[in-house]
């Protein structure tokens, strides 16, 4: 009798722990991942090449530019603004990079530094206009979208500049050696174990409830498997593509910034309730400007990747990318009202968009279908979000 009761209690507490975990990792993330898997399976069935290592490797490389832009866009949208200029900024800073590399013959390191500075300054200019001059971000960045595109045409004299420096071309086209990929996987898994360990110890020190050991191990095994599968699949083609490493590093860095620093916290507070944020002593203007600085900086990183991958800068480079980035954020659960959204969500959103593009191109569908499908998915995702929220509120 005694034993029976004990086991009962055990299962109850396990059930609670699972519920706790599921509740904490938001349900949205699961639907998103499920959506990606569904799209992949669908294209995999319709087309033999979609799920090959080569195509997946391509897909991730294709995704990288949108994903990098989406990371910056999440912060902008969370703070309650919008940045329509990132596409043109990618074009312009890409042009600047190509000019520095090809026309001026500067070494790659100088090219990278110069490009980043240009992106940062243009972002700062727009952020200053939005934050300190109180011009709506929509207008400022719409102006930026046109002006930057025009500037690109001016400085490149409307020509295509190709990149001849092989070391610059590596940025977007190289692959990590297979062994190196495995080492990175090992480091990542080691880091997962370490963070789980310190987290448990710290919670113990504070006397908080510690999640059950088996649950933590389960999570650990799941994520480790994900990492290993990813590396093995990439290795079975040429190794991990360079650009995807940028995306992963930036995603980690910005997730940390968003969740773990005062700056990130303040950005979410500003977007959630700007008056309450102001009355809590948060410097709204400075933080708002910094959000645009980061967006500009990320646009220039995306530009480096894109220019290098295409080995040239064209006057149409980056056109409409701002819309892809916004769509990725929105599909990934960022609210356009501001105050909520995650970087991981936006990256999954970018993966959804790119998968649709890639899959439909493979099937040889005409490009108009891609636009129709992407537009539909965007509206559908938001509709799904709004109805599920309404249901939740109705309860």
């Amino acid at each position, binding site marked *: 009798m005694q034993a029976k009761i004990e086991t009962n209690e055990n299962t109850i507490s396990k059930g609670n722990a699972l519920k706790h975990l599921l509740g904490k990792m938001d349900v949205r993330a699961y639907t998103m991942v499920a959506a990606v898997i569904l799209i992949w399976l669908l294209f995999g069935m319709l087309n033999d090449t979609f799920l090959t290592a080569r195509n997946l490797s391509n897909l991730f490389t294709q995704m990288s530019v949108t994903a990098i832009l989406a990371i910056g866009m999440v912060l902008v949208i969370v703070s309650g603004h919008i940045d329509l200029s990132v596409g043109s900024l990618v074009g312009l800073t890409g042009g600047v990079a190509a000019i520095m590399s090809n026309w001026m013959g500067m070494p790659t390191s100088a090219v990278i530094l110069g490009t980043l500075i240009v992106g940062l300054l243009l972002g700062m200019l727009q952020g200053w206009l939005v934050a300190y001059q109180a011009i709506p971000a929509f207008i400022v960045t719409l102006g930026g979208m046109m002006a930057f595109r025009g500037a690109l045409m001016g400085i490149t004299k409307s020509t295509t500049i190709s990149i001849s420096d092989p070391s610059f071309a590596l940025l977007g086209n190289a692959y990590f050696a297979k062994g190196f990929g495995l080492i990175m996987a090992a480091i990542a898994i080691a880091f997962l174990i370490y963070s789980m360990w310190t987290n448990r110890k710290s919670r113990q020190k*504070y006397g908080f409830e510690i999640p059950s050991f088996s649950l933590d191990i389960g999570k650990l095994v799941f994520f480790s498997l994900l990492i290993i599968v990813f590396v093995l699949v990439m290795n079975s083609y040429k190794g991990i593509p360079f650009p995807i490493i940028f995306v992963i590093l930036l995603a980690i860095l910005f997730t940390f910034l968003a969740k*773990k620093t*005062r700056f990130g916290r303040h950005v979410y507070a500003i977007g959630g*309730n700007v*008056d*309450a944020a102001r*009355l809590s*002593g948060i410097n709204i203007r400075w933080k708002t400007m910094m959000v645009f600085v980061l967006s500009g900086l990320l646009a220039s990183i995306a530009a480096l990747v894109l220019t290098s991958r295409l080995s040239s800068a064209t006057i149409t480079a980056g056109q409409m990318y701002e819309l892809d980035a916004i769509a990725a954020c929105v599909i990934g659960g960022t609210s356009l009202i501001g105050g*909520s959204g995650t970087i991981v969500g936006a990256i999954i959103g970018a993966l959804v968009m790119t998968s649709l593009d890639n899959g439909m191109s493979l099937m040889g569908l005409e490009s108009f279908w891609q636009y129709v499908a992407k537009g539909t998915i965007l509206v559908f995702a938001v509709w799904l979000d709004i109805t599920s929220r309404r249901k939740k509120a109705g309860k």
Partner: protein
Amino acid sequence: MYALEMIEITKEFPGVKALDRVSFKVKKGEIHALCGENGAGKSTLMKVLSGLYPAGTYQGEIQIDGEKKEFHQIMDAEKAGIAIIHQELALVKEMTVGENIFLGAEPIKRGVIQWDELYHQAAGWLKKVGLKVSPETKIGTLGIGQQQLVEIAKALSKNTKILILDEPTAALTESEVEILMGLLHQLRNNGVSCIYISHKMPEVFRLADSITILRDGRTIATLDSKEADDDKVVSLMVGRELTERYPRVKHTPLETVLEVRNYSVSHKDIPGKRVIKDINLTLRKGEILGIAGLMGAGRTELAMSLFGAYEGKAEGEVLIDGKPVQIRSVQEAIQAGLALVTEDRKRLGLVLGMDIKTNTTMAALEKVTKWGTIHTNEEIKWGQKYVDDLRTKTPSLETTVGTLSGGNQQKVVLGKWLMADPKILILDEPTRGIDVGAKYEIYHLMNKLVERGVAIIMISSELPEVLGMSDRILVMRDGTFVKEIEWREATQENIMLAATGGI
């Protein structure tokens, strides 16, 4: 013969009876003042009358000229000749005077607006209210007083028989008040009935023929203004018995922490108007200073301005611990040791979509930050501390504050400011809209803080609360302190008399 009879009106909100069998009768061609404290039910009654709360959501009957009426929407009330002019004027700034007067009722021939006709008629109405501007002037270029006359012209153009004015003089200058009063007398002579809601006793006695007093959702009395005086009206307004008990403990005030000298604040929108006029104030360590006054007296503006959060320009000296300080932003105010619990916690106090611990650490995030990184467990610890200290009822620290009850939300706001460890805590209506249990916990907390040497300024419209908790009481009217009273000498009557201008 009454132009308007409201009989036995009862209106309930979840948990509160806002109106309890209120009767209100207005004669044809009289000015009838409606008086009562904040929250006595004046606005609710007028919302019932103007159709904002449709028939069926309240009990009772409305009769116009002896005929029973049911208003299902605002349009119905307008058709019956009732117009309301709100404190916040409802005009479209970018449109002309004429367009505003006829908004929604433009003279039309075959679907086309007859502009000449419209401006011709508008000019006629402007003449009636004595406003000498062209009907083609944009509203935005007019002063508040002139805009109010446009509102009245608009109401008259709808063939209004009963005109409701809610605190019409709150934003007016003296000469504008004179013009308005003249106009109201003239309207009365033309047979229009006016319902005049005001806190200001001198105005009420100058204008009104009759006065009805509401208190706690009940009609207390209707008086002929010739037979009444300030004292009588005020004592009827506040005449409740003090049954609630407050946890008064003896405070021993120490040295002065805050001193405000010759402090004036300009209105944020209306140039030339001052919301705070040349005030002086001292606050000592370990005391509760109550600031009483009616809505619009300038109490919130004073608090916001001291906290560096009011947009209007401030002049004068502020000294903290004897040293002059310049507070130009909220950051500087927090650094100087101030904290402000705002009146409107949902709009100004909390980020409703965020959870309890995040809101708690919002104003003192540096306490849980190390090398620029937020220490999650440290944050949980602080969040938990204030949930425990204030006995906030919540399922978890990660509950979004939007889902909490009013009292628990207020505790989260208080927790946020306690974590910032202020020397001077300003509480603006700290117990508005929260349940009795939470109220008393907040009072106990105030006593505890005072004991620890915090100086508290409590702004409140609830007289029993002011009387029950303060050591000293300052009464504010029209942006100045008109009276200072020790708590032992304070009564509801002498505070209200000062607040309404009776003295």
